[in-house]
């Protein structure tokens, strides 16, 4: 049985404690009512830590059973993370029904395409399939989230500071996971003996950072105010939007003529 480095166990322990603190804040400060899926995600992470530890003790750290079971639990966590993210995004965009309709399509489209690509890449390299799939899923998740947040910014949708921290940390963690994964992969291919503990240490440390940021955000967060924007009739949008686009098109053509006076409209 390959033993985990002592430092990895320590950081893992700190991570679990941090997660319990976040869960406590979610529960005792009443945030779980607003973000139940996020609460389930945090609780599942704590549960996963216990389950994985039990698996390692029962089947041995390097065993195939332990590998399959621990990565299967990771897939469940990924699914819950997506649900938690969708929940927070819905809280931000839900009141803006039109933008939410666009937002979830952007999120699903970006994530789906990149995940498919990651799946193909992992399939081509079977010996590293899990590592590549993990990296690809994190990259797809981060890119989809950023695409959605760019949409939020583009339409000047107000975002509560708490939600900014939650979404931002999800993205930062995924980016950190991609980098640590890539570094560990490179080290392994170059024959570095301790690539796995390095990967575990850096990934868990990044996650501890995320937990601390979440804990501070939950501690500071004020009670949420239910505010809904006054929506307009769809007919106003349908009437104005094509007109504005047509004007913008003509304006672009004029600019084109300013740049190239000989150019004409098709």
């Amino acid at each position, binding site marked *: 049985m390959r033993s985990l480095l002592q430092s990895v166990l320590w950081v893992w322990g700190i991570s679990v404690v941090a997660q319990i603190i976040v869960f406590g804040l979610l529960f005792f400060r009443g945030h779980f009512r607003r973000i139940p899926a996020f609460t389930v995600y945090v609780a599942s992470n704590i549960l996963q830590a216990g389950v994985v530890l039990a698996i390692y003790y029962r089947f041995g750290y390097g065993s195939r059973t332990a590998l399959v079971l621990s990565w299967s639990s990771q897939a469940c966590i990924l699914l819950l993370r997506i649900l938690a993210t969708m929940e927070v995004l819905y809280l931000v965009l839900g009141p*803006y*029904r*039109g*933008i939410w*309709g*666009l937002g979830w*399509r952007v999120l699903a489209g970006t994530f789906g395409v990149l995940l498919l690509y990651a799946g193909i890449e992992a399939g081509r390299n079977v010996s590293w399939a899990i590592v590549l799939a993990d990296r690809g899923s994190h990259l797809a998740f*981060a*890119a989809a*989230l*950023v695409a959605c*947040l*760019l949409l*939020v*910014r*583009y*339409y*000047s949708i*107000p975002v509560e500071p708490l939600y*900014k921290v939650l*979404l931002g940390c999800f*993205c*930062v963690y995924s*980016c950190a996971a*991609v*980098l640590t994964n*890539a*570094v560990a992969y*490179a080290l392994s*291919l*170059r024959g570095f003996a301790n690539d796995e503990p390095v990967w575990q240490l850096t990934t868990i440390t990044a996650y501890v950072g995320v937990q601390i940021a979440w804990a501070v955000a939950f501690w500071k967060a004020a009670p949420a105010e239910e*505010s*809904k*924007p*006054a*929506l*307009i*009739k*769809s007919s*106003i*949008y*349908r*009437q*104005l*939007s*094509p007109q*504005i*686009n047509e*004007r*913008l*098109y003509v*304006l*672009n053509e*004029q*600019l*084109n*003529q*300013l*740049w190239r*006076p000989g150019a004409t409209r098709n």
Partner: protein
Amino acid sequence: METGGHSKLSLTFLLLFGTVVALLLLLAWALRGPGKLTKSGAGSSALEANDRPHVNFLPHIRQALDISDYQFLAEKSPPVVQGRVRRERRDVALAYLSALRLEFDGLLRMARIIAGLSPEIVVVQEFERLRLTVKFMWRYELIRMKLRAGFAPLPQLDRLGDLISGLSVRLEIAVKELGERAALAAELASPRDRRGIGLV
């Protein structure tokens, strides 16, 4: 073989690193927030904001850029004065172009607010607007550089001004209508549900 494998690995790593850095920069920009305008209720105030359009100053700009004045100066004044006038004319044109850009941005902001407050949006139209905006910004920068270099056809700025003026007028009418409907809906909404005025 080994060297090739390592260089491929390094390239993959660099690509991943670059992508992650780009994602983090975009994330920081997206979460920074555009400021007070985005706070709740800002939508209506932004719609109501209606400064005097810069295109109203078009006749003055046209006068400042009148070619006959410049020809007169060329005949009567020394080269130093001509050079100074040329620089001032260019500065005026640049300032005007910047003002037009501001106005264009304002109109786009209105369009985005309308889209944000609509319960349904047409994805194709939104992407088309994004495409047109990118194109406009690109061309605007090119013209600005051309002006700075000193060989832009200044009188053609008239057309740009006319177009933005036309768009302003039509949007003003629409926004006025929007404001009237919002006021009517606010009156109709029950007192216990003032927060969530639903016009739909």
